[in-house]
């Protein structure tokens, strides 16, 4: 058993960090919306799904990629796909806010109503894509089947770390995720809009009195969270090369867990929670088998919440300082 752990530790770490990076990027969307509105945006998993479909569309319908890219062409291609996916996911998130949440917020409905609206929007988007968008966009009558995405990044071995192979796709996923999170963190902490977001998170009424336009702030929050889901979608498509109408479901649950684990409402907590969840899952699988992944991950979550009820980092968006 210990021997297994030593043999599999580093490969599991590489796998855990890769999937953890994707969890973390999706977790940002949950955590930002929660920080500002105290709302769990359950349709965020579908915002991610829309990003994967946009990425697939770019790869197969706009550019018809047939073989993997290398060097600068690959980086350019990835940036381009990211731009399209971020626009699609960010746009969808803003639209979601306008349609599903804003009318409720304006009428002063309870948070529970918004939660039900979120679940409804989630189902609506899944079925819309299964029945209409995927069949029509890709000419696939069986809209519920998974759709493969052609390879964009070759599985080149870059280096070995203690016997674990690190491939190009792993490095791209991890670096891209960290860069995006640093950018977002800087944006929230250093810009005027970012200050508005923090102010609204701290005390919406006072923020309004101080001249913050709450609708703009909420819209920006959804846009940023959606755009991060768009980046996550591209990285997912690069790594796993598929999408399906309910691709966001399991990932959404995992990302939400990561957000809670790190401290919901906290951007750096989402990063930490994502990586921690990916690593715990993969390390736990070494001992107990892959079928125990989820049990281990959620046991750790419960234990951490018992001792730190607000998550590992605990502090929320309003207190984040530069």
């Amino acid at each position, binding site marked *: 058993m210990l021997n*297994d752990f030593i*043999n*599999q530790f580093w*490969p*599991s770490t*590489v*796998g*855990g960090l*890769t*999937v953890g990076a994707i969890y973390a990027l999706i977790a940002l969307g949950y955590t930002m919306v929660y920080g500002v509105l105290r709302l769990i945006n359950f349709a965020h998993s579908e915002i991610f799904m829309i990003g994967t479909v946009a990425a697939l569309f770019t790869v197969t319908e706009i550019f018809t990629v047939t073989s993997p890219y290398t060097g600068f062409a690959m980086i350019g291609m990835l940036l381009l796909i990211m731009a399209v996916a971020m626009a699609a996911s960010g746009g969808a998130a803003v639209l979601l806010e306008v349609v599903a949440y804003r009318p409720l917020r304006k009428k002063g409905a309870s948070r529970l109503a918004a939660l039900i609206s979120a679940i409804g929007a989630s189902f609506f988007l899944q079925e819309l894509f299964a029945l209409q968008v995927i069949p029509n966009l890709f000419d696939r009558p069986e809209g*519920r*089947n*998974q759709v*493969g995405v052609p*390879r964009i990044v070759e*599985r080149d071995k870059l280096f070995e770390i203690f016997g674990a*192979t690190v*491939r190009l796709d792993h490095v791209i996923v991890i670096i891209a995720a960290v860069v995006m999170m640093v950018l977002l963190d800087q944006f929230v902490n250093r810009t005027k809009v970012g200050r508005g977001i923090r102010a609204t998170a701290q005390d919406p009424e006072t923020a309004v009195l101080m001249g913050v336009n709450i609708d703009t702030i909420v819209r920006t929050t959804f846009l940023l969270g959606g755009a991060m889901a768009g980046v996550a979608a591209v990285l*997912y498509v690069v790594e*796993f*090369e*598929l999408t399906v109408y309910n*691709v966001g*479901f*399991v*990932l959404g649950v995992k990302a939400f867990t990561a957000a809670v684990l790190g401290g919901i409402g906290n951007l750096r907590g989402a990063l930490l929670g994502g990586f921690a969840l990916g690593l715990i*899952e*993969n390390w736990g*699988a*070494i001992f107990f*088998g*892959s*079928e125990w*992944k*989820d049990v281990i991950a959620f046991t750790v979550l419960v234990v951490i919440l018992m001792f730190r009820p607000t998550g590992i980092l605990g502090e929320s968006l309003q207190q984040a300082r530069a």
Partner: protein
Amino acid sequence: MSAVLALGAGACGGDDGGSGGDTLNIGFMGDLTGPDSAIVIPPFNGAQLAIDQYNATNPKKKVKLIRYDTQGKENQAAALAPKAIKDDKIVAMIGPAFSGESKAANGILDKGKVPSITPSATNPDLSKAGHKFWHRLVATDQAQGTGIAEALIKAKSPKKAYVINGKKAYSIGIGDFAFQAFKAKGIDTQRDQIDETASDFSSTVTKVVAAKPDVIFYGGYYSEGGKLLKQLRDGGVTALFASGDGSLDAKLVEAAGAKQAENALLGCPCFIPFGEQTDPTLVKFVSDYKAKVNANPAIYSTEGYDAATAFIAAIKGGNETGEKINDFLKTYDTKGVSKQVKWGPEGELAETTIHLYQVQDGAIKWLGKSDEAKPKG
């Protein structure tokens, strides 16, 4: 297809009230419109083909095939079976297609004295219920898991094997049988389980890389199998990858990628005439099927055809009630398009065969029976 059915009904003179006069009703029960209909429509087409060919000979008693669409749901099967017996007065049933719905409907059919032949339900327990009117045209998951494992042992003489399976009942069952078959031959075998809904199987890949197996058996369906196979190959695993009927679909190649799926070995208790055939009976079957359905024969097409053929043979011999047809099946021993059709006392085939298929140049090819086939790679 519905147009063909409507024509058939019209030709029989509107005998919707059930069997009688010059027409006998046979049922086909299975998932005809639901999520797994892709493996039920081919046997339905096979059965319809056999019946259309028979009716075209202008026999004294014509046969009408009635569809009972369960969408794969057990409660639907339990609700439709009494309707088939009482209202439609069927004299025989092809199906139910899946094991779960078979468990729900077999007892009702048995009590109603309706002989049934399932072309595709593979759960080993089905024959243990003591039903006297039940038959199947395929080998069980046990025969399949064991047969594929033994074919792997014969082809590769592995020192180490690895079994991976999904979490669904079929996946665990067939994984268990393969695991036991490797163990029984003294092969060092390890095992891991994947979650069908997940997309990241890196922890499983890590385990397989560390175990360095010579062969891998995967128990489960094609969509997860394809994802798993891709990640294994990308992770540097080159061991021969084998799976059962749940993965025998071109979508496995699509999900894994043609390069990664190359040489994947797929076993099935079914016979699918892929590619060019030499046996004249099969050549005729394939061309007739293509002419009727406008597609190549797929999984369980031949079994559906043979099931209908057995019932037709009984009716030709003047057996027009369920009990008489059932007695006739006891003596039936004929070479069908799928296999030699002859049943033992429990309704299991007297002789079971597992066929092996392999992905070669991105397409699934038939290699032969599992004890004779020579897989590449």
